[in-house]
Structures are given as C-alpha cells and as structure tokens.
C-alpha cells in the first residue's frame, strides 16, 4: 500500500504469486475475518500496480511461461527452481519485496544466476544402482528433491544417472522439494534439462566441488523423513503444492471414477482460479465434487490460516507441504503417492504402498 500511495506501477509483465486468501470460499473455512480483510487489501494493492492477477505459485504453467534464456526476476522458491532449471530462463533467487521492485523498475542486478558463469553445476549427485522401479515410482521425484536440497544447500546440483524421463509435473515436484529442504535455485539433470546436454556442459567444464553417490538407501531415508506421523489416523488429504495442473487434475480424475471420499476425511485441492476454470471446462471438476473434494483457489493451506484446529493429521503427495506443515500448521503429516492419497481418503486411514 505504501508503494501504491507513492504511485508505483509495474513496467514489465508481472505475474502474481498466491494470495493470502481465497476471495470466493474463505468463509467455508475458519479463516479469521481480519486476516481475510488484510489479504484482500493486499490483493487490491498488487492489482492496482498493473500486475496480472495469476495468483499462483506455478506461474510457469500459465500463458505467462517464460522462454529459454529470458531474463526474469521471480520470487517463490519452487517457481525460481523451475524457471531456471526446466525452462532455462534466468532468475536469481529473489525474496519477497525485491520482486515487486524489479517489476516497478524493470531492472534486475547483473549478478547471480542472470549470468552464464554462475549457472554452472557445482556439486554432483550420482544415482547409483537405483532400481528402475524405484525411479518409476511416483514418489521418486519429490523424494530425490528433498535429498537434493539437503545435500546441495545453496549450490547448483547436477543429477547424473537418471533412467526415466520425468513429466513436467514431476520436475515441478523435484524443484519444489529441493527449494524447501535447501536453497536450490537451479539444478541440472544430465541429458534432460536444457543447460545440461552433457555432464561437461552442466559443469561448464569445471570439476564438481563435491560428489555424492545416491543409492536406494539414501532415497529410502529421505522418503522416511518426509513423514512425521505414526499410525493410520487421517483428517485430511491435501494436494496441489505447487498448485495443481491440468495434467494432475486428469490423473486424479482417473483414480476417483465413481468413488467417494470417506465422510470423516476432508479432501482438498489447491490451485489457481484460472487452472480450475480450465479443468471445469474439461469436465474434471464435477466428478471431484461428487467424490467429496473441496477446491481452494489462489492460495494454499500454508499461506492462509484456514484449517480447523481439529485437523491434526494430513496426508499429501507434496514434499513441500510435508516439509512445512508440521512447523507452520502444527500438524503431523504422512507423505505418499497420489494413488496412496486417494486410497487413504476413501478408506479413511493413511495407508501407503511401501516405497519399494
């Protein structure tokens, strides 16, 4: 609001991250009204500066997706990792408040990951004897991302030895996990991501500062650490961190055909208003409603205080939700695959296919 009073306007295309509240549905949840009011004021302030109200943590899955080599200035840790690593656009890891300054000035410092030489890999993560079925498991990418963040800290990791070809949403999960357990803003996967056609290219001819072998055991340990709950009690399944994509809506749709969520388990999906509107046009929302799912728009459980105090046990397929929920929401969390989450929601208790 201070920037607005000073007359600030953005001078380059500027997408917005999640808001602090779902304007349409916040009254369905125990959101404190004064919180909602302030969040709506903040939304109005951002909009009045000429931004695009995308309200999503996955702006790379909108029409504003940047291109390879483009210089951008992004906040939102998972979006930074995705833009740099998967697209090859160039952004430093910008904190909140600096991002809007870049939008107003149209300038970013010629430093950090904007410059080619700082985009070289620094540490090597070598997958060794990781069974193919483990690499094909839906949990592989968030679990690997969680480990990657721990090992890489604020360095650029390079992953070598991947036998599978991940989907875009799997890369999104990998980056989001690594930007939660660590400060990963750029990762390379040899033979897969745009700046890593070869190992030499990923490191720009430099030697790795450190090399780690990643075996089945390290991945199992990382998988275990994502769960903090014991037992099977379950209050809520929550999906969509980062925000659910069209492909993810489709996958979920195929798992819930004609089925119903257990009456004592809440089933929540977080996404943006635009993505949900697209999913609705494709006929993917009606069946979700019949299943018993709720959808929250433009925000998530971590950015809006919306969960009832009685919600103590969450289950999710997101390493980022799993990472932050215990501290931010004082809940216990079970990490599982999308299939595990759906089956658990139906039977009313947290059950998982063991990770190998």
């Amino acid at each position, binding site marked *: 609001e*201070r920037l607005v009073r000073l007359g600030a306007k953005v001078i380059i295309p500027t997408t917005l991250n999640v808001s602090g509240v779902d304007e349409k549905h916040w009254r369905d949840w125990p959101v404190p009204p004064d919180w909602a009011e302030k969040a709506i004021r903040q939304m109005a302030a951002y909009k009045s500066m000429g931004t695009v109200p995308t309200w999503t943590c996955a702006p790379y899955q909108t029409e504003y997706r940047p291109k390879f080599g483009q210089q951008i200035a992004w*906040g*939102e*840790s998972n979006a*930074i990792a995705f833009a740099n690593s998967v697209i090859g656009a160039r952004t*430093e*890891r*910008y*904190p*909140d*408040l*600096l*991002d809007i300054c870049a939008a107003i000035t149209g300038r970013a410092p010629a430093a950090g990951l904007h410059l080619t030489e700082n985009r070289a890999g620094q540490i090597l993560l070598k997958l060794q004897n990781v069974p193919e079925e483990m690499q094909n498991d839906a949990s592989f990418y968030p679990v690997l991302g969680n480990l990657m*963040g721990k090992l890489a*800290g*604020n360095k650029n990791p390079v992953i070598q030895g991947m036998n599978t070809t991940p989907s875009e949403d799997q890369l999104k999960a990998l980056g989001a996990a690594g*930007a*939660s*357990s*660590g*400060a990963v803003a750029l990762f390379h996967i040899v033979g897969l991501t745009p700046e890593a056609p070869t190992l030499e290219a990923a490191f720009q001819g430099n030697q790795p500062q450190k090399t780690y072998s990643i075996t089945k055991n390290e991945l199992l340990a990382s998988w275990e*650490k994502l769960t*903090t709950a014991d037992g099977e009690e379950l209050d809520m399944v929550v999906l969509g961190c980062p925000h659910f994509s069209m492909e993810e809506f489709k996958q979920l749709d195929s798992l819930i055909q004609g089925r119903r969520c257990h009456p004592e388990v809440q089933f929540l999906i977080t996404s943006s208003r635009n993505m949900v509107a697209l999913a609705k046009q494709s006929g993917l929302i009606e069946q979700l409603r019949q299943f018993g799912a709720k959808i929250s728009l433009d925000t998530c459980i*971590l950015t809006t205080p919306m969960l009832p105090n009685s919600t103590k046990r969450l289950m999710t397929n997101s390493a980022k939700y799993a*990472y*932050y929920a*215990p*501290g*931010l929401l004082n809940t216990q969390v079970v990490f599982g695959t999308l299939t595990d989450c759906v089956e658990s929601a139906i039977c009313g208790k947290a059950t998982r296919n063991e990770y190998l």
Partner: protein
Amino acid sequence: MNEQIQGDSIVSGSAKGTILFSDEPLSFWGGYDQNTGEIIDRRHPLSGQIAAERVLALPFSRGSSTGTAVLLEAIRADKAPVAILTTGIDTFFALASIVAAEMYGKPIPIIALSTSDFIRLRNGGQAEIYPNGAITIHQANS
C-alpha cells in the same frame, strides 16, 4: 576469554546478545514464528529454541522467498534476533533489515563471515557487534 572476529557489515548496526548457532540453513517462512520468535522448523536442530533477542548464526537462508516478509514482521513485532550472522552475503536477511529501516526505522545488523570465522561461533557465548562488522565473543568458563 574474548575472541575477535571481523565480518563484512551487510546491514550496519550495533547489537549485543547470546549466540544461537546452527550450521544448518533455515527458512524463516515456515521455520520462524514472527509472533514469538520461536524456531518452528520441526526438522531443524534449533526447533523449539527462541531466537528473539539473540544473535542468530546461520550459514544462509533456505526455502521460501517469503522468509524476508516473516523476518520483517518479526522485527516490527520486536520478536526478531538482535543480529544475524551468516557465511557469505544472504540477500533475504539483508533485504528484510533494509526494509525494516525504511518502514519502521529499526534495522538489525546483518554480518557476513568467512566459513572459518563462522565456525568459531559454534560454542556460543555472548556476542557484541559493532557497526564496522567487528564482533567480540565473550565466553564464560573458558
């Protein structure tokens, strides 16, 4: 025994307090309660510790971009560390302090140290921080 360390003053200021040290990075968003000053990342070695009014030594900030907003709010509410010491320059912490100066007139010192100097903080003690980035560590019983 007193020890002297010379750091780089990223945001300059004076402060005094008990050192709270970890060699594991922290995300302030999801990891720090701006209303109480408690470290709430349940996977962090400092989980449950109160960092408010202490000199917090962390290698760097990890995780969320909103860490800056959380630290800013903690400074406004007087629940922030009195200073933050890192290895290398951490823009997230620096920006929060710069904006706190602009909006509330109360920045906290943010000091960048070499890795070898940073490790010298691990035994805790009392730290006194000077505007030029110099730090004096007083350790009882040593």
